């Protein structure tokens, strides 16, 4: 029992720290990648290749004045970014990021919480993180913020359904909500993306909408809403929204890896490395298309979610079920 507690505590802290570091460096990666897409070089002043940029950004945010608008709902205004970031960071609990390692003769699973309902947990906490955005937009007593928050609310809940339904095919094949079991079921190259290619595409589209990235970055559409829900935020509270957003981005990519791309499975290299490679390929894809696509209009986003993705994901469930019943 004692060993379990110590193991969990150390594992959690290490993973938390590494994950946070990844989130920080994702900002740099995004700026660098976008820079090279856009015939410029990106940050290169702070440290070699701009490697200290995220740290400088973090420190700068820490020393900035925090402005709380006079007419805002002050309690909610301060709580909102905290909700956003802490819920997004909690998401990593159920992601299996590797097989297992043996330390001091003990087998240590490379997952923080091997939960039987891992997938449900993910969706539940992902929705909680959306609250931060909505509350933040509403509480700042700003029309742009309010519009951004409302858009965020409507968009996120609309795509959550399709996102949840696009994973059902995977659950049907694996017969489990436990992410570790889902990964194990994909051993030997039986990646779910082979059996559920359409669902994978749906998942990626819904995920983009869920984490508010181009072409679905409506809630914070810079050019229309002058930043949207985080318009009134400054200093660390502003940064927290961004850390939350990048954490969400990482998680969404990690879940895609886990559900569809065989998780940590792969030849030769250690399991953790494979997991990271796959995850970052998806993250790279997200950044790449940010450099390519314009932004969809809001009503089209909603239409795509309700009128296209929802029926199609339901159809995907139907086809998957039919094939599985007939193949029996």
């Amino acid at each position: 029992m004692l060993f379990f507690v110590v193991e969990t505590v150390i594992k959690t802290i290490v993973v938390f720290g590494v994950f946070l570091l990844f989130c920080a460096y994702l900002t740099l990666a995004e700026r660098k990648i976008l820079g090279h897409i856009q015939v410029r070089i990106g940050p290169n002043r702070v440290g070699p290749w701009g490697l200290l940029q995220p740290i400088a950004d973090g420190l700068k945010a820490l020393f900035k004045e925090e402005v709380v608008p006079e007419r805002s709902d002050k309690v909610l205004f301060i709580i909102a970014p905290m909700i956003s970031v802490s819920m997004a960071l909690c998401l990593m609990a159920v992601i299996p990021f590797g097989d297992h390692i043996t330390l001091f003769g003990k087998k240590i699973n490379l997952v923080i919480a091997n939960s039987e309902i891992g997938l449900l947990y993910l969706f539940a906490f992902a929705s909680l993180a959306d609250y931060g955005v909505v509350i933040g937009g509403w509480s700042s007593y700003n029309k742009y913020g309010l519009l951004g928050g409302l858009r965020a609310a409507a968009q996120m809940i609309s795509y959550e359904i399709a996102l949840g339904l696009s994973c059902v095919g995977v659950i049907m094949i694996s017969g489990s909500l436990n992410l570790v079991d889902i990964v194990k079921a994909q051993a030997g190259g039986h990646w779910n993306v082979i059996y559920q290619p359409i669902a994978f595409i749906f998942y990626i589209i819904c995920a983009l909408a869920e984490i508010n990235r181009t072409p679905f970055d409506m809630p914070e559409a810079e050019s229309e809403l002058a930043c949207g829900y985080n318009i009134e935020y400054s200093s660390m509270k502003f940064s927290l929204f961004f850390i939350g957003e990048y954490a969400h981005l990482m998680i969404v990519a990690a879940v895609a890896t886990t559900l569809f791309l065989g998780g940590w499975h792969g030849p030769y290299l250690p399991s953790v490395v494979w997991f990271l490679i796959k995850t970052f390929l998806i993250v790279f894809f997200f950044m790449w298309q940010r450099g390519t696509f314009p932004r969809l209009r809001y009503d089209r986003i909603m239409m795509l979610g309700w009128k296209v993705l929802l029926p199609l994901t339901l159809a995907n469930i139907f086809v998957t079920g039919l094939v599985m019943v007939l193949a029996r």
Partner: protein
Amino acid sequence: MAEVRYLTVNMGPQHPATHGVLRLILKLDGETIVGVDPVIGHLHRGVEKLGEVKTYHQNIVFTDRLDYTASMVNNLGYVGAVEKLLGIEVPKRAQYIRVIVAELQRLAAHLLWLATHALDIGAMTVLFYAFREREEVLNILEQLAGARLTFSYMRIGGVAKDLPDNFIQLTKDFLKKFPARIDEYETLLTENIIWLNRTKNVGILTKEDAINYGVSGPVLRGSGIKWDTRKAKPYSSYEEFDFEIPTGTVGDVYDRYLVRLQEMRQSCRIIEQGINNLPEGKIIADEARITYPEKDRVKTDIEALIRQFKLASEGFIPPPGEVFHSVEAPKGELGFYIVSDGSNKPYRLRIRTPSFVNLGAISKMVIGHLVADVIAIIGSIDIVLGEIDR
């Protein structure tokens, strides 16, 4: 009857997508626009009034600051009006140089429009691509005028300096690669499904409305009306150039986008013709009381020195009368109306700026659309607040 309450939102003056300090007071029903009220004047500098206290030469500098993305064309419009008032003939070479630089400026202005318009709709990468080419155009113009934005290159009766030695080569090099770059933007945007979604059937301005609101330039041509001052009332030898006027069909944001892209290709054709047929000769008319003498003569010749001094301090005195001259600026028809009372300063200088008139049609285009469309529509009108507020 149910009470209807709308949300009133200020868009601008400090807004990333209103292209300057334009303020729009939007009335929203949800996100649908039910009313729009543009508020202008945040950038008012009184250029027209200033024109009444400065000599004809000094006013050239102020025209730079109208549409600061296309100062060459503003110069051209103003000096054209003054030349018309004076009734002087501009040497052929100067006319050709004016056409070349005006079209280069049109390229730069359209590239800036493309960059910001695409950024407004979320295609960030196009911004940097377009700026890469705009940089090259500005480098060429910098060789010529020494400045990159406010050139003040035109003079009454001609241009300030002859083309530098490497100008022709630089321009030719640029023209060689530029059409491929336009193709590159088109690859990113023209058939992009999201771009089509955002621009097709958005902000439609019908033919009748376009005429009734008096819009001009790409906005007018996007609505399907073949009107271009360069063809309709040729100035500066434009009648000797061979080019087409691209037009749209529906009059939506997408048509205006296509028209401008086509215009860039046409501008390339004009520049190429101008360079190939560039006549030899003087670059400024030799009118002793109106045009400046050559700079090296000023240093050796006492008459030239006196002439320079008189022009710089007192200016010249045109005959009394009034004149209107318009040119095709990147944004539309730019007109200068000058009343002379026989003194060395204009009695009245009135500038008909295209952005101001084009902006007037905004309520026609915006109402019934969503907030996101306002951005696309403003971008497609291509306004510059410098010339709206003057």
